[in-house]
């Protein structure tokens, strides 16, 4: 068993726009049998660090400027192509984030799992297939026994990630590099995959470098946690100490700004609260929120017996199955469920963006027209949507000004052009941007800023009802906190009604007054936020809650 020791590693990216320092002199070591968590937000350099160990960085543009990576007496950075081939997959294996794209779609799973054994000539190819089958069964890919020639696309994401684990561990490597291995998975699946990973590595004595953006998740698994921020290691310590006594303000902020399930807050603390003030902020700057004063009023939106079906090659799929829903004015209705549960479809059919097969939708007591026609803009003005991906939801060819003016022009709001521009500027200020941003194009903004623009666009028509469809799911926790705070304050100021869709129970609970849990197109549970969390009525909801890493469920550390 060897020890990995990274010393003063510096990695730069040489792009046309200039040199970007991705990793800025970090030191890190992994002892035999140890599980080390490497945590940071996007752009912190955690993946670059991980990839540079096996020389898997795309070069150019990446260049390792200095440092050493010691592994069983050798400096990995000095090894040539064929030496590295001998180490990769044999001594050090790797698992990547997206199981959908990381398995070769043209080769049967079994062959891919067996391949490391064949490449490294560890056994006879026939024996390798046998071992691969065993390994796959061990990680729970049971279908392989029935159809050994199955291809990756025939498996779900969770099964594929299990197969990736089997592939990585089949050669019994000394070190496993896991780069965000569960980020793309649903919580319940994530929990299962993590436990398999942990058990298997434990039994093989493999040490693990576990890279993740999710501190809570790492707490669940790691013996030791290393936190990176802007290419530097800001803190590393054993898990318990790091959680209970974080030293660096950034780490403190990371722990604090994630909405948790056990307490209710009106506003989330943000990283700026901790870093800019340079002072010890309270760990829990929260107030238990008072009951919403607007609650109990009449329903703004009501849906009755909604059914939405899609035709696919395999036949008709019922995405929304007899859903009835009522949302009161000025409240937030949370909608939670795993991928494929139909929550997004429900959101869009409420906006009449998708044709529904049957059912009725009432807004302001008026019935919406049956089909998803575009031109009956009467109701369009009062209902808007904010999407998950702020990168895709802004037209890249239009400036912010054009994007925001267009809806007003189409709906003839706001009289003259100057009046409209004034309103646009006011809106931008409201979402935390300014008039100086008007002439810019979307690609010049960060993800958080773009989402603010999307919010502003949704507000141009002065709607009452906004569907937030996973609108913070793609964001780092620190940015997520800012956007969630913005949505909350807008609701307070404008009396907006939200349908807040997310797979993240914590976020939903933070935002919502009421929560519906969706599964397979149906709403399985309905109730007030606290009620759902404290007394889940169905096994499914309970499973959802239990799957959340303990550290994310509560503000305290119980791992």
């Amino acid at each position: 068993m060897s020890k990995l020791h990274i010393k003063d590693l510096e990695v730069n990216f040489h792009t046309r726009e200039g040199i970007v320092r991705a990793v800025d002199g970090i030191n890190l070591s992994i002892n035999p049998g140890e599980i080390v968590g490497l945590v940071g937000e996007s752009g912190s350099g955690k993946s670059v660090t991980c990839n540079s160990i096996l020389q898997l960085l795309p070069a150019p543009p990446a260049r390792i400027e200095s440092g050493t990576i010691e592994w069983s007496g050798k400096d990995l950075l000095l090894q040539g192509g064929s030496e590295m081939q001998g180490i990769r997959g044999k001594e050090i294996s790797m698992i990547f984030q997206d199981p959908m794209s990381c398995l070769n779609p043209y080769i049967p799973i079994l062959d891919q799992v067996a391949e490391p054994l064949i490449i490294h000539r560890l056994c006879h190819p026939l024996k390798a297939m046998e071992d691969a089958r065993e390994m796959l069964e061990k990680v729970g890919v049971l279908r392989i026994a029935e159809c050994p020639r199955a291809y990756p696309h025939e498996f779900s994401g969770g099964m594929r990630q299990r197969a990736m684990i089997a592939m990585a561990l089949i050669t019994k490597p000394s070190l496993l590099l896991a780069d965000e291995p569960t980020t793309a998975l649903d919580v319940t699946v994530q929990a299962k995959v993590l436990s398999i990973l942990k058990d298997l590595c434990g039994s093989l004595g493999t040490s693990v470098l576990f890279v993740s953006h999710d501190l809570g998740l790492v707490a669940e698994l790691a013996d030791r946690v290393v936190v990176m921020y802007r290419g530097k290691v800001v803190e590393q310590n054993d898990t318990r100490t790091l959680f209970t006594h974080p030293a660096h303000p950034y780490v403190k902020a990371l722990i604090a700004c994630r909405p948790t399930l056990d307490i209710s807050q009106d506003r989330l603390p943000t990283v700026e609260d901790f870093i800019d003030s340079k002072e010890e902020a309270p760990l829990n700057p929260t107030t238990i929120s008072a009951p919403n004063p607007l609650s109990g009023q009449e329903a703004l939106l009501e849906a009755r017996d909604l059914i939405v079906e899609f035709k696919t090659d395999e036949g008709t799929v019922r995405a929304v199955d007899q859903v009835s829903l009522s949302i009161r004015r000025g409240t937030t209705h949370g909608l939670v469920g795993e991928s494929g549960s139909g929550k997004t479809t429900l959101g869009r059919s409420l906006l009449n963006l998708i044709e529904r097969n049957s059912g009725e939708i009432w807004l302001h007591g008026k019935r919406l027209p049956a089909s998803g026609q575009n031109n009956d803009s009467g109701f369009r003005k009062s209902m808007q949507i904010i999407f998950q991906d702020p990168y895709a939801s802004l037209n890249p060819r239009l400036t912010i000004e054009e994007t925001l003016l267009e809806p007003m022009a189409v709906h003839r709001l706001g009289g003259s052009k100057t009046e409209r521009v004034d309103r646009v500027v006011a809106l931008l200020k409201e979402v935390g941007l300014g008039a100086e941003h008007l002439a810019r194009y979307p690609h010049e903004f960060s993800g958080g800023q773009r989402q603010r623009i999307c919010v502003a666009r949704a507000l141009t028509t002065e709607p009452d009802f906004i569907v937030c469809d996973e609108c913070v799911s793609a964001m780092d926790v620190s940015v997520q906190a800012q956007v969630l705070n913005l949505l909350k304050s807008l609701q307070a100021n404008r009396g907006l009604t939200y349908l807040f869709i997310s797979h993240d129970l914590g976020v939903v609970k933070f935002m919502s007054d009421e929560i519906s849990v969706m599964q397979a197109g149906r709403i399985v549970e309905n109730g007030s936020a606290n009620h759902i969390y404290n007394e889940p009525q169905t096994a499914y909801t309970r499973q959802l809650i239990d799957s959340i890493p303990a550290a994310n469920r509560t503000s305290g550390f119980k791992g």
Partner: protein
Amino acid sequence: MSRLIFSRLLQAIPTLWVIATLTFFMTRFAPGGPFDSEKAIPEEIKIKLEAHFGLDRPLFEQYILYIQNLLRGDLGPSFKYPEWEVSELIATAFPVSLTLGVLSFIIALLIGIPGGMIAALRRNTWMDYLPMGLSMAGICLPTFVLGPLLIFVFSTQLALFPPLGWYGASDWVLPSLTLGLFYAAYIARLTRAGMLETLQQDYIRTARAKGASSWRILTKHAARGGLLPVVTFLGPAFAGLISGSFVIESIFFIPGLGKFFVTAAFNRDYTMVLGTVLFYAILIICLNLVVDLIQALLDPKARQAK
């Protein structure tokens, strides 16, 4: 799989019908007729001739008659060479074009795919620029320049190969090279683009992380995905190759199909035009089907979808 073949063949029927109809009327509306000639034929003889070929009937009746004959598999005699049936002419010329096409195809693949792969692997080095530059030259040079050029070098100057004819293996070299190089150029570019795209895929990184060698990555992991777009191109390209090339046939004096495509239209040889058009359409339909089957073979996802 057999369902795919069956449904495709079923779809082919309306396609062929539309094509036959379109062509029928287009040729008839083109000015001039099959019996116009310089030594002006007396009017009464022309009428006789037209009656003999049924051209005196109303156009729509001719059309119905043609479709009826077509359903019986009868393409009728050529108007230009009435002593020959259209199907007979196609049947004599097709083997020639097939030989030429297959040879060119092999050359195109043998040059194009390795060339594109090398270029993709060594992107932005001279091993990329050289084959890509050559392939651009191949695309830019019309075959009627390349053909005489090859003849000039290999036949006139070096006396290695005969400059024309289609009588033995040595006659095959220059025409298939001329035709093959043109397609090789396209294939090389497509291969390079496809390979570059595939080499950026995450699963290539996975393969590298397993310790696979470059050769293994190229052949086992990247080739399938990278060559899929090439396969799509190959169907119509192959149809184009084996249905002959007028330019090549004219330069090298080869009795292939390509000549009929051009001269039939020029001669207003109505039956021949329709015959060649339908023949080509059937080729395209069959080869597209083959392409789909190959794609299904290469791509398990496509296999399942079908």
